[in-house]
């Protein structure tokens, strides 16, 4: 199975790797991660941002806090793919819907009163 180089690259940093492993154990907040590491909260946030961009973790707001979860390989990419797919598909749909009505889809026009 091929993994994205960007994901491996994101795990290059040992601190980032530790953070990822922490999140993999159970979902947690930035503050919770910071408490167990000798780095500042803003550094942890930066690392999480990189992990998020590499689709390794994802964030979910829970009240005032953001909880980080792992994003299993494939799932994040699948979601990103679906997001792009629907954006593109709906663009095409809009063009089709706004095309003059003399085309294909009019079989039950006569049913309309």
């Amino acid at each position, binding site marked *: 199975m091929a*993994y994205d180089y960007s994901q*491996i690259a994101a*795990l*290059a940093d040992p601190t980032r*790797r530790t953070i*990822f*492993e922490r999140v*993999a154990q*159970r*979902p947690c907040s930035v503050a919770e991660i910071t408490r167990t590491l000798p780095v500042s909260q803003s550094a942890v946030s930066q690392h999480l941002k990189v992990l998020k961009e590499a689709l390794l973790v*994802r964030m*979910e707001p829970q009240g005032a806090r953001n909880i980080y*979860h*792992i*994003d*299993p390989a*494939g*799932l*994040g990419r*699948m*979601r990103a793919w*679906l*997001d792009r*797919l*629907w*954006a*593109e*598909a*709906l*663009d*095409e*749909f*809009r*063009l*089709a*819907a*706004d095309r003059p*009505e003399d*085309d*294909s*889809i009019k*079989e*039950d026009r006569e049913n*309309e009163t």
Partner: protein
Amino acid sequence: MTTTISPSPVRRSVTVKAAPQRAFKVFTAGFSSWWPKGHSIGSVPQKTATIEPRVGGRWYETGEDGSECPWGDVIAWEPPQRILLAWRIGADWKYDPKLLTEVEVHFVPLAEGGTRVELEHRLLENMGDKADETAAMLGSEGGWGGILVGFGAAADAAA
């Protein structure tokens, strides 16, 4: 216990000049006329894609050689307001009748004319339903554990 893995739904909307009635028709009966042809699931190039107009109707594509490849089915059919489809294609690009992800589309009439079409593709976490397997994979040597070890070795060698 909350689930660990649940990607947020994909939400997209688009505004068209057409009234809901026509928008619904183009979306469903005209599905093949706008669905990007490049996005076929089957192994052969896609010729048409179809949503059968009824609850329980099939949602499938037809290849140029006439072969059919199922995508899912129609759960709710409420012209011209709403359609709810089951998308049963997993992260492995295979049709799985037991997999349920939902695509819900609302056709909202606008006061100034036209329609806002709101689409939500949800229950994506079901694609990761093998969550146990995923967790095991992550912990195994072939999973992240192994990748991290491999990466560490490569990084050390490069250092």
